[in-house]
């Protein structure tokens, strides 16, 4: 996911951050402006578009039916996929998902799964035979850094306005009826990614800042403030103290960001 920036620019960014400043005058722990638009794709059962500064991510939720996994016959299935659409950045290429898009999808997936946001047992139609499958498709439309937090927030936002089809079982056959029921969520996980630049912890890195970043830590925080999923990325390291510090920062920021969700 790299876009080339000059060494001069890199040095400028890291020197500023050392002094606690950033190119766009934000504090190290400030997010860019967040705007969420819900339900703009009528064909999808749920959708949301997020603008995080200039980063733009659209998430669509489609609901289908399918067979449950053999080890969880009473549970519906959640599938998260991410597309780094080539029109979003000169560094994205068409073709099968690369490790960056797979990692993005799996981080979003883990945040929703581990927080038990969706009551999977409610998605069961006929145990062992038929269940609802919830497809969450993350579509990156403009890459200006911090795709993880934007995608995770948009995914929860899209689930919040997802309508589940009504159904009835007649003579052993599942029939989809008219009308919809809102998908009820049990949790509202928010993922906060904290980058390490030099020995500073920085929140919501822009595209250029990501080029300077040593490493990042993405943490999914539940409503009660507990963390339910973590992913470290990037070629650098964190000290144990920095990890504890980052987890506290993530909890604080998640509570702020959660206010952007409507429920």
């Amino acid at each position, binding site marked *: 996911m790299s876009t080339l920036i000059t060494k001069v620019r890199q040095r400028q960014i890291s020197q500023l951050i050392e002094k606690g400043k950033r190119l766009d005058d934000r504090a190290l722990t400030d997010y860019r402006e967040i705007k969420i638009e819900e339900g703009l794709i009528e064909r999808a059962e749920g959708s949301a578009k997020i603008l995080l500064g200039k980063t733009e991510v659209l998430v669509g939720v489609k609901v289908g039916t399918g067979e449950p996994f053999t080890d969880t016959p009473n549970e519906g299935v959640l599938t998260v996929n991410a597309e780094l659409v080539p029109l979003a950045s000169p560094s994205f290429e068409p073709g099968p998902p690369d490790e960056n898009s797979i990692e993005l999808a*799996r981080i979003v997936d883990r945040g929703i799964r581990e927080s038990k946001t969706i009551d999977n047992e409610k998605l069961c139609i006929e145990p062992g035979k038929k269940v609802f499958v919830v497809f969450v498709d993350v579509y990156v439309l403009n890459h200006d850094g911090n795709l993880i937090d934007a995608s995770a927030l948009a995914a929860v936002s899209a689930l919040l306005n997802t309508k589940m089809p009504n159904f009835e079982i007649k003579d052993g056959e599942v029939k989809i009826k008219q009308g919809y029921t809102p998908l009820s969520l049990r949790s509202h996980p928010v993922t906060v990614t904290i980058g390490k630049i030099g020995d500073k912890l920085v929140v919501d890195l822009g595209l250029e800042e990501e080029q300077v970043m040593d490493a990042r830590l993405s943490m999914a925080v539940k409503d009660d403030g507990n963390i*339910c999923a973590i992913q470290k990325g990037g070629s650098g*390291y964190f000290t*144990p103290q920095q990890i504890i510090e980052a987890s506290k920062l993530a909890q604080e920021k998640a509570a702020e960001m959660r206010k952007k969700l409507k429920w």
Partner: protein
Amino acid sequence: MNDKQEKLIDKKGIRLDGRKADELRPLKLEVGVLPNADGSAYVEHGKNKILVGVFGPREMHPKHLSRPDRMVLRCRYHMAPFSVQERKSPAPSRREVELSKVIRESLEPALFLELYPRTGIDVFIEVLQADGGTRCASITAAALALADSGIPMRDLVVACAAGKIEDTVVLDLYDAEDKLGAADVPVAYMPNLNAITLLQMDGTLTPEEFEKAVSMATDGCKQIYPMQKEALKTKYMHIKEETQEETEE
């Protein structure tokens, strides 16, 4: 979890496999096991059996992936079809792609990539048998294989997981604990530099439990670290013995 299931840890703090909360599984590390590789290692961590081969630094294929200012590290974490209960398709799964990435990023901080511009180094990890915690065992073995290849390193990378079963924070989860437990926190660590190079978590922990899990996992890493060094030394002890025998003859 339903009541019929056996408790993963009993009142005395003994786990299903007989370990205490902060006890590692038995570990066996061996270096220089693959004649064709530039560096190699084999690890048995509990029932995990993992083989790692390192090739390079060598010319990159395809060439356009090489970097003018540094070496490129490539990692491939792969599970053998017979390594798990249900046969796994040999094609790389999304999980394997993600693990290959996080393992690579856990090893990169240990290497001086800028010393070998335009070259590539490949780390091939084959999980022959999986028993929970394969990514950690893979990292421990991969760091050994890299060291065995003779490439300079800032430190060895050691990895070990902590997690939560029932209500207890425990070290080094095996398969059943991983599946039925409440949380799993794999950690990779460079003990000499006090640097954490991999951290993941799934499952919920309170801030106190999380702090405990991270410190328990790094303590586990510190226990494995001397075993890694010993494995490297053992290889050269064998070479020394062999050459002595030859000169005596």
